[in-house]
């Protein structure tokens, strides 16, 4: 293998490593949305705070469209089950309902829009 090939291989491996790191970092602070009649009505996002940044503990349920339909996130907790969040209390105004799961077993979230259905669960 020539030096150029080695160099290219090294760059390729570095890129793969970087992308892999980015993908795992992107598992936190990511959202899943539900679209109804072509409009994203709401999103459920996971995030972490404090010392445990390696796993998410928060699920935010966020209304994204002013249509009179309430939205709430659902969380799937390993070994526990699915827990509904609070309805986003201020509608489509900025800000979300926030739920804090301290067990460290938050595995997925989805968003449900009143009378319009839910997204699939997004796993971390």
């Amino acid at each position, binding site marked *: 293998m020539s030096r150029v090939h080695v160099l290219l291989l090294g760059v390729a491996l570095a890129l793969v490593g970087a992308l892999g790191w980015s993908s795992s970092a992107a598992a936190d*602070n*990511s*959202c899943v949305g539900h679209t109804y009649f072509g409009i994203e009505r709401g*999103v*459920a*996002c996971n*995030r*972490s*705070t*404090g*010392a*445990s940044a390696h796993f998410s*503990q928060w699920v*935010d349920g*966020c209304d994204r469209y002013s249509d009179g339909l*309430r939205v*709430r996130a659902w*969380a799937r*907790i390993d*070994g*526990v*089950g*699915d*827990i*509904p*969040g*609070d*309805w*986003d*209390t*201020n*509608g489509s*105004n*900025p*800000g*979300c*309902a*926030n*739920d*804090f*799961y*301290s*067990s460290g077993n938050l595995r997925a979230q989805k968003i449900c829009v009143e009378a319009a259905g839910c997204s699939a669960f997004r796993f971390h």
Partner: protein
Amino acid sequence: MTEIRRSASKGVGETETDQASGSERLPAPTRRFGARHSRRTVAAAVVAGFVAVGTAATAGGGFSPGDVIPAGEPSPPPESRLSVDEKVLATGTTPIAGPWRLTAYESEESAGQPAGLPCIRLLLQAPPAGTPLAGSGFCGKPDEGGFSAASVPVRDKSGASELIVFGIAPDQASSVHLRSDGGSRASARTREAAADKVTGKVWVMTMPSGVRDGEFEWVDSSGQASATKQDASGFFDRLEAVEGTK
């Protein structure tokens, strides 16, 4: 009856919850708070109708209403600390959830919401084993009605459960009531929140056992009830989901 007293220099206020459902009123000690009060102007104190067991410092994890938790402070639960300051609005303790703390802060940038929004959250300081949620809250200004609410459903290993509901009410609200079957099943007085972060007043109440439906309304000082009500069924849905967990 639960009473939380503020020192006279900070303003006078008492808070109590009347659990009209028939459950026993539990005695609570009078607690002073604000001993470590920040010098910043604060509109007032805070809320809650809860049984206070132990000291204010214990319930608040070492912080009292009016205190500012500095960014990064590793107060319990440690994974809940923020990179922004929080102002303690209220602390208390309930029989199943244990000690809790209600705070106001500004949101941090995240995928779901921008930075700088006014937020409140209620965190359990020592969540009972087996309960999936350790706290909840919301960010953003209330809608035009000025009323917002969130809940923390709790269960312990024995299966006993409890539902704490809290939120924001308009400035003119002097109390918040849960009405069901034509009567008030629970109520809590409101208190002004930290004006620089949260507008309106805050309130906290524990749902009486056996109550599983109702609507929230706020009442002004003349006894006039709000025209708009908030359906409480979503909060009870959460309690049932938590009760059904392993």
